[in-house]
């Protein structure tokens, strides 16, 4: 059955309308706001100026926030994907009942609010938490990583792992398990079969997982706000501060827009870099 062009357009219309109302229009209003001036006493000025953007690129606080965001998002994306790939590979090989039980456990954290999960880590990593007590007893000294970069990365990996696994498991499931037998049959040790056959076939999933978790980590607010404390300022927490603490809405708008455009540029560059590898596999999987 072929669906006529008109029907197809009609089918995507609700999505387009929703996207325009909830994304395009807010972004346009954000753009307008970011071009406004701001006065400490008078508040938002109804002018058109590039002052806010100038401030972003001149103020080292913002630059530090960008770099921290980038560092944490990249690290979180890579670690989450690595962990997710190992778990997905295990689940793929397990199959059956064990697989359905374990995948439910892995996906279950999505049912709990991210804020709650982040607070959970305070109980573990906080001053009187499990981690310092444990390391103290082991004679390693009380390790306190809360309100620092490792705490944020751990929080992100925990929060993003279900997404990585959902993507990667789908990718593994597209591989015919007979291929492993075929490789073994002509002399490949198990590790060689995984490296030469399985890995190339899950590259698209790995790339997609890194990208998605990176983007989610770079824009997330709850984890850095709760586990990063007041001194670790990321792009998202900087925007919140401008908006809700300093009430400088134009600056917050300019920061938000820069974050969005920056992330978009990274995504485009990343996809251009990985296209060659993934197109071969996706076209012939």
């Amino acid at each position, binding site marked *: 059955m072929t669906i006529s062009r008109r029907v197809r357009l009609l089918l995507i219309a609700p999505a387009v309308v929703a996207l325009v109302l909830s994304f395009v229009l807010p972004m346009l209003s954000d753009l307008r706001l970011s071009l406004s001036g701001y006065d400490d006493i008078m508040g938002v000025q109804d002018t058109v100026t590039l002052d806010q953007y100038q401030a972003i690129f001149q103020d080292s606080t913002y630059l530090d926030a960008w770099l921290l965001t980038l560092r944490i998002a990249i690290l979180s994306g890579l670690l989450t994907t690595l962990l997710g790939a190992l778990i997905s590979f295990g689940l793929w090989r397990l199959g059956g009942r064990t697989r359905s039980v374990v995948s439910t456990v892995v996906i279950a954290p999505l049912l709990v609010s991210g804020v709650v999960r982040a607070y959970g880590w305070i109980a573990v990593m906080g001053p009187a938490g499990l981690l310092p007590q444990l390391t103290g007893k082991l004679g390693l000294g009380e390790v306190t990583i809360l309100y620092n970069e490792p705490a944020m990365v751990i929080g992100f990996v925990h929060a993003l792992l279900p997404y990585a696994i959902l993507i990667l498991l789908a990718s593994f499931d597209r591989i*015919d398990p*007979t*291929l492993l*037998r*075929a*490789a*073994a*049959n*002509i*002399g*490949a*040790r*198990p590790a*060689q079969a995984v490296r*030469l*056959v399985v890995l*190339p*076939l899950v590259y698209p999933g790995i790339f997609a997982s890194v990208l998605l978790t990176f983007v989610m980590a770079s824009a997330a607010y709850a984890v850095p706000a709760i586990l990063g404390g007041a001194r670790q300022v990321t792009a998202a927490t900087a925007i919140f501060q401008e908006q809700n603490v300093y009430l400088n809405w134009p600056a917050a708008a300019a920061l938000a827009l820069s974050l969005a455009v920056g992330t978009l540029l990274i995504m485009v560059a990343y996809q251009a870099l990985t296209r060659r590898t993934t197109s*071969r*596999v996706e076209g*012939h*999987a």
Partner: protein
Amino acid sequence: MLSSYRTGPARPPVATAAAGGPEPATHLELRGLSKRYAAGGPLAVDDVSFTVRRGEFFGLLGPSGCGKTTTLNMIAGFVEPTEGRITLGGRDIVGMPPHRRGTAMVFQRYALFPHLTVAQNVAFGPKLRKQSRADVERRVGELLDFVGLGGMAGKFPDQLSGGQQQRVALARALAVDPEIVLLDEPLSNLDARMRTELRAELKRLLREAGVTVLIVTHDQAEAFSMCDRVAVMSDGTVQDVAAPMELYRRPRNPVLASFIGEGNFLASTVDAVAADGRLEVTATLGPRTHRLVVDRAEPDIGVGTAGQVLIRPEQLVVTAGTDGEVVDVSFLGPTATFVISVADRTLICSQPGHAASLAVGDRVSVDLSASGGTFVTAPGVGAGR
């Protein structure tokens, strides 16, 4: 032909009776092989033993679920036997991981690596053996020419037809100089028309490669046309191992007789053993009792043994008469099959297509004494197994 591109040490030539003693050299031997998947569960493979000679084409024929695929997987090392021994080229291979066994399988759905080109698929095995790049490249080129895919080296598997994919799978298997090539339902993935054509092609290629071949199939025509000897399996056990012609002409028991081809079974008793070893038997059909001289499938059958006479459709002689009636005609081209109702029995008879002369409703008689057949004992009776 294949020897021209072999890079490894020359394989011993196909053993002759003189070289290997009185029997041709055994290449693969299964002894008392059994597999039970779940503790307390049924045996998927039950005490299977057979030997495959060097250079032989050996078939494992049976319906789905008979244990033939499990047997194949135990040889390849994907499934470990519960009991029994497998020796390949003199080595005991039970417990050995698949990559060290020297078996190379052509999978039912080929299992080509989708992310690699045809040439890279074939090079996969040789590359793992740390052969020089030039050696691998030359080898791959020769193998692709050998299977007639010289121009396809840079293509990806999904750009090839089913038959071409199969030849890539074959080249990939041959590239590792396997002790034995295992074919799992090699032609079941192709349409009927291509099947016959590719069967001959596959057989020719494998013969030229000079390898020992084990073919697993549920298709009798496939097993018969490709194999020197066939083991017929049912319910996890081997019913018989013999050349196709033997299996068809002298089935050792009714199970084999009905699984291999079609036939008419008539209850009968042995009256006498003729000087040439054939049997004189009496069989009853409707009101008449017939005396027949038939072949025997088992050696030790004496006078008085009760059993059945198997008469193949093409053996049944139909004459003018009034004993029975033709109730159905299927004209297939090369042959025509008739269903004839005689007294309370239904018999199947076939004639060459060009000479088929019967029509539905014709009155006919059956001349059993002119028909010939094979005497088969019932399972558990006489020497049956």
